[in-house]
């Protein structure tokens, strides 16, 4: 499966639709999020036409995440991280850490080599760069991590603190609706791994207004792996095996799939081995 929003999404389109998408959607919408130097170091980035202006007069600011990162990532990641979305702040934020305490300058600026997607960056941040497997303080944690190794279960699946924003039913020009949710299922990029999924609000007629039918809509699911930013050391899943192994709490089920969604969604339903 390809990486990068544009490359992945293109799988849903015919050759003719790809051209329309480039012209009427990508340039006017997707690319408008991409920041320049000044958007992070001199003024806050313009989001949805809202311009908050200079960060601190005409000074060059090294970092001020709440006035820069927070604006582009203010729909999901940032308010989930600070707890403003659902009252569950991330353990790293609780201890005074901000975006760039985990996400390095290299990760943000790159090294001059064009990349197809941020997920392909070698120096992308991961939990295990700081929390080395085997360095756990208790035998219980060591054993739990050994059994649920990252190939089978992502860190997020166990350590996401609670519900996060899921957006539904997006239509060009009309936006989408959102509500809190918590979904565990197979990672669409690595089907053997259980992880936190987030609903991507693209529905069959999202781009109808611009003449895109998405002829290959069912090639991609409506749920995608998500690095949810409300991490907790202990959760109902880390405290009690039954939460997943007996109750199967928050696991994606057939009856919960979004109506009229992609046929690929069913592949993400996780069943325990009998």
């Amino acid at each position: 499966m390809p990486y990068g929003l544009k490359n992945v999404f293109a799988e849903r389109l015919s050759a003719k639709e790809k051209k329309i998408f480039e012209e009427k959607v990508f340039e006017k919408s997707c690319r408008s999020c991409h920041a320049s130097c000044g958007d992070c170091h001199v003024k806050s980035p313009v989001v949805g036409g809202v311009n908050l202006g200079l960060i601190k007069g005409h000074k060059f600011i090294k970092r001020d995440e709440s006035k820069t990162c927070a604006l582009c990532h203010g729909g999901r990641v940032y308010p989930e991280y600070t707890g403003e979305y659902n009252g569950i702040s991330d353990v790293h934020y609780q201890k005074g850490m901000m975006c760039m305490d985990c996400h390095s300058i290299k990760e943000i600026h790159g090294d001059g080599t064009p990349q197809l997607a941020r997920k392909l960056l070698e120096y992308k941040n991961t939990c295990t760069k700081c929390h080395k497997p085997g360095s756990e303080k208790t035998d219980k944690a060591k054993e739990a991590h050994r059994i649920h190794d990252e190939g089978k279960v992502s860190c997020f699946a166990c350590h996401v603190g609670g519900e996060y924003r899921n957006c539904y039913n997006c239509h060009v020009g009309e936006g989408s609706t959102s509500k809190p949710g918590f979904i565990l299922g197979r990672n669409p990029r690595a089907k053997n791994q259980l992880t936190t999924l987030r609903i991507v609000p693209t529905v069959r007629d999202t781009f109808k207004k611009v003449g895109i039918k998405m002829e290959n809509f069912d090639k991609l699911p409506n749920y995608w792996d998500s690095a949810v930013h409300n991490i907790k050391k202990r959760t109902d899943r880390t405290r009690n095996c039954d939460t997943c192994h007996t109750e199967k709490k928050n696991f994606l089920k057939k009856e919960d799939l979004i109506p009229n969604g992609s046929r690929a969604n069913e592949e993400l339903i996780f069943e325990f081995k009998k």
Partner: protein
Amino acid sequence: MEKAKKILVGLVLSIIFTVFSYADEFSYIISTEWLEKNLNNSDLVIIDIRKADVYKAKHIPNSINVLYSAWAIEKSGRKNELPEEDDLQDLITSAGINDKSLIVIVGNSDNITELVNMTRVAWTLYYAGLNKVAVLDGGFTKWEKEGRPTTTEIKKVKPGNFKIKLNRNIYADKDYVKSAIGKSTIVDTRMPDFFFGVSKLDFIDRAGHISGAVNLPSAWIFTKDGTYKSIQELEAIAQGVVGTDKNKEIITYCDTGRLSSGWWFVLTKILGYKNVKMYDGSTEDWAKDTTMPMSKYTWK
């Protein structure tokens, strides 16, 4: 002459109050002057509960940042609840708190919520079994206004050795409060509109107050500039509502267990009331259960 002497003694007492309570020798309300002089006291743990970005921009030297919402979490659909015991232990250890630590909570003081955030964190630490937890009078807002030193340097914290010993005597749950109606003094610390039942927050299921409660708003603790009122004034306000018997059981509550920490703190740590609990679940919990008695459109 005698009258002048009395006035002088009163004045001196009032000044001393900002530094010392008469509960014991430890200062529960720390003045900015005292804190500046004691910044390098190795027993002092200054916990800044403001948001990480504002802390990073400017904070009191030697203070550490542990966000308010780490101490008062959302749990079982309720706001401002105690963390689980093991999580609370982790927070205390990672804040570098030792057996003999003197802890000072620092927040902003621009509004009543920020002011009682400090007392709520203090209550949580007392619940954990600590006994020397103070709040900074006027908070960071006053500190900054007075031009006292600030830094952007982040202090490295060595994990502390304090092991929590839960002090359940200061905690009340719904069943306990129900059994205390008619026996203890139940104190609603919200503003009168909420007590009387003409106003209610959206997430509160029923308007009004716990039947039999009295009203003593936490907003009345503070002056307009976000500092604590004088001991005489606080004592007069409190006595007019909860009486002078310092051994009688008092239970404070509000909507979510945040405002109520204000009077819990003042009654216990400043005025010397010996048996004060806080109903952590408060009206958010009480009003959900329709079998729990509530009264509205009455001051009784």
